[in-house]
């Protein structure tokens, strides 16, 4: 299997702090990968580097065969890499539907067909009945789903999800897991997710990358990784013990 996304020795420093330290891994096409690790491990920084929101100090990021580490966030998205934000950022004054229309307009010239695509996605993410609402009035779980819908509207090859399960109730988590799994299975969408909710990670990911203090301390199949002593000690701790 060829790697859709490939990181080679990617590093990022903030003044003295090394946020991401020589991280390398490949995400093959059609797979669901998860990045886990304690708070401050550098997960979101890693996402910002991949998505073009930040430029790495060293290393290279290749997506679909081309280097993307020098591209801006919008250029990266146009190549087919969409992301959500850990602290959700919907367009607050726009309706739920218009939020998704904006995403769909990336590859569509006319608003009517973008609207059609938005309807389709809102249905898939259980937001159809709220499509006329102003995004600012949504509850957190709905906003998280809206983020996913808007990202999907840009027709990505890979979706980067930054803690979309955080703050959801277990039933809502299961629903999100089901939605993501269906997207992956039906349209072959590759997914890379940062997640703290281990229940979701175990249910979704076929491969887990573990970060701690910016370094990758383990990677592999989820059931193997969660038994790794280094991972247990640095991250899972009492929860796994």
């Amino acid at each position, binding site marked *: 299997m060829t790697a859709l996304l490939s990181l080679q020795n990617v590093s990022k420093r903030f003044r003295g702090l090394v946020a991401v330290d020589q991280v390398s891994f490949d995400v093959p096409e059609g797979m669901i990968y998860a990045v886990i690790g304690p708070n401050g491990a550098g997960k979101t920084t890693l996402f910002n580097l991949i998505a073009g929101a930040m430029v790495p100090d060293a290393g290279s990021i290749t997506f679909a065969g081309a280097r993307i580490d020098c591209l801006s*966030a919008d250029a990266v998205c146009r190549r087919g890499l969409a992301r959500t934000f850990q602290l959700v*950022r919907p367009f607050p*004054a726009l309706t739920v539907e*218009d939020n998704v229309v904006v995403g769909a*307009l990336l590859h569509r010239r006319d608003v009517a067909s973008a609207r059609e695509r938005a309807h389709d996605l809102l249905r898939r993410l259980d937001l159809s009945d709220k499509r006329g609402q102003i995004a600012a009035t949504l509850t957190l779980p709905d906003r998280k789903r809206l983020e996913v819908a808007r990202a999907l509207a*840009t027709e990505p090859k890979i979706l980067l999800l930054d803690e979309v399960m955080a703050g959801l109730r277990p039933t809502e988590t299961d629903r999100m897991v089901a939605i993501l799994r269906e997207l992956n299975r039906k349209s072959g969408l590759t997914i890379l997710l940062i997640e703290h909710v281990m229940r979701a990670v175990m249910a979704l990911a076929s491969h887990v990358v573990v970060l701690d203090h910016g370094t990758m301390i383990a990677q592999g199949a989820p059931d193997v990784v969660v038994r790794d002593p280094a991972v247990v000690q640095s991250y899972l701790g009492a929860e796994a013990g």
Partner: protein
Amino acid sequence: MIASAIAWLDLSPRAMLFLVLLGAVLLIAPFIANDYLLTVLILILYFAYVGQAWNIMMGFAGQLSLGHALYVGLGAYVSAVLFTRYGVGPWIGVLPAMATAVTCGAAIGFLAFRFRVAGVYFAILTIAFAEFARIGFDHLDFVNASAGLFLPVAQYAHNDLWRLRGSPAMFYYVILAATVLALLICRLLLRSRIGYLWLAIREDEVAARAAGIATFRYKMYAVMISAAVTSFAGVFYAFFYNNLFPEQVFNISRSIEIILGTIIGGIGTLFGPILGAFVLTGLAEALNSAMGHFGLDLPGAKQVFYGICLLLVVMARPHGLWPWLAQRIGVAEPRK
């Protein structure tokens, strides 16, 4: 064709009725209004027009310009110089006038957006460029510097629309047509692809970039389109008032006057700038004439009045009068 135009407007029957009534009143106004009232109406429509032009940049794309007098002034000076020195009429002169304004807007936009000058700093940059122009034109002998540029005024036997020489009624219809045209342009922009991308940028630029929007390019479009639309107001200004002084046209208070009506009417709405112009300019002129009636002469009373209006609206209706009024009379625009 009229049927399709109505369908395109996509208005409720009630909104349509209001629009028809308003249109009828505005169309016959010159026949019933005296010269003074007509001049006030011209002033109102002038502010409704420039307010809409500014709204494209701030209300749609979220880029705060406090220097729109620059584009008015450039439009005025370019068309006036062409007319007085080379005999080029305003409808030809408007093209180089627009081109000049667009070029300046593009230069400011490029500097700001390329070097990530945003928010308050962007607003200060727009003030700075308007001030450069004011001081520059004040020393530019080619346009008579601070002595001012005058268009020949004579008694005209008939209205010469082609050369924009004639009675207030003619100017009234010109600015009325321009205001309606601006409204149609704004509506077209807001409902098309570019409008959605602008709103996304206005709401959250980081999220807009993450959704693949080339924010630099679309912000540039916003500045350039806004500058082009604004510059026609300058052409109108020059030919209506027949005199131009850099100290007046480029003054920062002009830039503030341009935006007040829109803030009061509702930033980012289609009818807000128009309503705001009627309310603000209408009341200010009423105040002026009332004070004149009682023999009061208080310099700065208008500015104080503007300040009070702004204060009241910001406190009571922060989204402007139009969204509130539209709700009350049942013609609300779909929220954008």
